[in-house]
């Protein structure tokens, strides 16, 4: 059974911004996909498989704009990003009070993975969407489940939890066939 979880670690290597590009945006929900495209255009085509990289980065920016900065146009979202053929790494920081329910979310996700492991689809119905009193009708409540799968090299928050860092490693292309 998968035991992936969100890590809290201010000192994680994922937060290292050496060699990263940097952009900052106002917290305008209407422009989240546009901002995302500005970031993703730096990525080599090899790692943009089926728009997945774009989709996953868009979720991180949306969370920062909506849940972090509550769409306050005076608040900024700061983004550091690094792309190569082997890795995508993004750090997104907002000016909000942080994702304070990480431990609760990890517990929720553990139960979700347990249901999946047992193929208990009846019970899984209670764990398909993570909601808080602040969630609204347009929140899917599933973005972080997918994020944890996609960002296979780590998904880390700072202790203050208004800054997330994620990393994905891509398999190196096989350039030839080994012959003994």
């Amino acid at each position, binding site marked *: 059974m998968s035991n992936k979880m969100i890590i809290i670690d201010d000192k994680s290597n994922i937060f290292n911004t050496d060699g990263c590009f940097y952009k900052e945006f106002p917290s305008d*929900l*209407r422009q*989240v*996909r546009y901002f995302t495209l500005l970031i993703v255009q730096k990525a080599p085509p090899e790692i943009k*498989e*089926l*728009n*997945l990289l774009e*989709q996953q980065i*868009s*979720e991180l920016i*949306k969370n920062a704009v909506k849940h972090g900065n509550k769409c306050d146009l005076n608040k900024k979202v700061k983004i550091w990003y690094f792309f190569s053929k082997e890795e995508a790494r993004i750090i997104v920081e907002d000016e909000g009070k942080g994702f304070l329910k990480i431990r609760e979310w990890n517990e929720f996700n553990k139960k979700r993975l347990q249901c*999946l492991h047992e*193929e208990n*689809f009846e019970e*899984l*119905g209670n764990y*398909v*969407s993570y909601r808080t009193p602040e969630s609204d*009708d*347009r*929140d*899917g*409540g*599933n*973005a972080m*489940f*997918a994020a944890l*799968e*996609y960002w296979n090299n780590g998904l880390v928050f700072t202790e203050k939890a208004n800054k997330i860092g994620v990393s994905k490693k891509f398999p190196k292309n096989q350039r030839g066939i080994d012959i003994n």
Partner: protein
Amino acid sequence: MELKIRKSSNIYIIDIQGEMDLYNSYKLKDLVMKMLEKKVTKFIINLDKVEYIDSSGIGALIYICSTIKKMNLQLLVTNVHGSVKKVIELTKLMGYFPMAATVNDAIKNL
């Protein structure tokens, strides 16, 4: 995102075209809720022409699917492929949504 409804006997097919993202996905939810008010009991949601889906789109599908399950009505999601399939796989919900390969298969099974 464009939504079109067609009918095959008492089955209603919703063809979705375009992007099911944070700006659009609520429209599908609203449409299905209106159809439920009108006592539609059998649904097919055809994702064949969906080019992009995000967590809001997946969220809309989860909401629709759980509502229809609770009401003991019938739903099949069809033509799940490409990036839509990848995103559903990331959320591990391939087994949660009732699926059929094509609209014709779904019609036979409803």
